[in-house]
């Protein structure tokens, strides 16, 4: 079968989802190629490197295809998929920190810097690399709070940590990012 190219103009319809549920390989591949780049960006934010991100992406898509019939159509399909991938990333985080405690930095960074100048210079790829350099605990909390929009209560429930830990992890993640941005200036 010829490889299907990524086509942004392709429109996701209910029929496509039904075809995927019925096991239509072409529809499944179209769905994958449509959403993979966006989901891969999410995975890259939570993973240490590309290999880890691809593992999460593969596992997430297998979950999506095996649970497509559970999508009720209450919200957007993309939102449902994003939740699947975020949850898969959290599962990877839990596995990786079974024997690893949160990195404790005794002294909090009190860096005051103007990030606007850094924004002008940094590309998205650079910013992504900075996020990936964060310790896994900081990175996960930062992603969930700053980008996904979770509250500290939700984060504490998802990661099995206290709200105070979530807040301190976020503060330290921000401080580290500020310091890294300053060093890049």
């Amino acid at each position, binding site marked *: 079968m010829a490889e299907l190219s990524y086509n942004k103009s392709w429109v996701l319809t209910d029929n496509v989802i039904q075809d995927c549920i019925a096991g239509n390989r072409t529809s499944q591949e179209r769905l994958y190629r449509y959403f*993979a*780049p966006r989901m891969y960006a999410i995975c*890259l934010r939570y993973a240490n490197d590309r290999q880890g991100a691809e593992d999460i992406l*593969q596992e997430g898509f297998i979950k999506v295809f095996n649970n497509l019939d559970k999508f009720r159509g209450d919200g957007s399909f993309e939102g449902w998929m994003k939740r699947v991938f975020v949850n898969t990333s959290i599962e990877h985080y839990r596995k990786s920190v079974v024997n690893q405690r949160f990195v404790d930095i005794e002294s909090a960074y009190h860096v005051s810097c103007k990030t606007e100048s850094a924004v002008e210079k940094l590309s998205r790829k650079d910013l992504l690399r900075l996020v990936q350099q964060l310790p896994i605990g900081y990175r996960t909390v930062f992603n969930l709070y700053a980008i996904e929009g979770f509250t500290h209560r939700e984060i504490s429930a998802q990661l099995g940590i206290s709200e105070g830990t979530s807040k301190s992890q976020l503060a330290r993640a921000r401080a580290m990012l*500020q310091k890294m941005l300053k060093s890049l200036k």
Partner: protein
Amino acid sequence: MSKENNHIDDLFKDAFDNWENEPQKDFWSDIAEDLDANDVDHLFKTALEEEEIMPSEKVWEGVKEHLPLNLWLKRRLAQLSYVAGILVVGMLATLYFTQEGTIEAPVADTPKYNIEIAIEEVPLEEIDLEENIALEEKAANDSKTLATDNTIDKKMKSVELNKEDEMVFDIDEEKIKAILQPIEPLPIDSSIARVNGNSNETDHENSSEEAILPKNLEDILPDNLEEDFEEN
């Protein structure tokens, strides 16, 4: 009362009206830091939220291997197997509880034998030692040959069960006859013969064949002697 209240109000008003207090030194730095933090959040959120990056082709290859053929069929099969599993467990449990107590362990209906071996006591005088020794040697040889034989059938030949569950011994009759020889009358002591008055006529050979006790001797001998003699 109202005059007193007005007085208290005026008192506090005068005290706090032109009151000024310098904030702590790190108060503004905390606010500035918080603003910077929000900037960081905003920066990364806008930059990364809508990011799209193409993954490598091997991801799709990995996903393809785990794709279900038909989710509806998969779900129905899973439900059916679940129901079938419950039914099988239920049937097994029913069988187990209904037959519990009625099943008896099979008892072998084997016949019971009461074998009594009658041993006839033979007086030592009657046993031919030479013949017994010869028989024992023969029996020993027979047992040796039996021991060397590996087949079970030959070992079991000596004892067999017939249809009436009677035990039949396959023993050489001649050997039994040889062992159980007819009891010969005891030789009459020469002293007893002399009492009869015919000492010349009585020798050991003749007396052993036809020994007749004198009538008057019966009175002399104890009562149970004759019974003992007959038993012997």
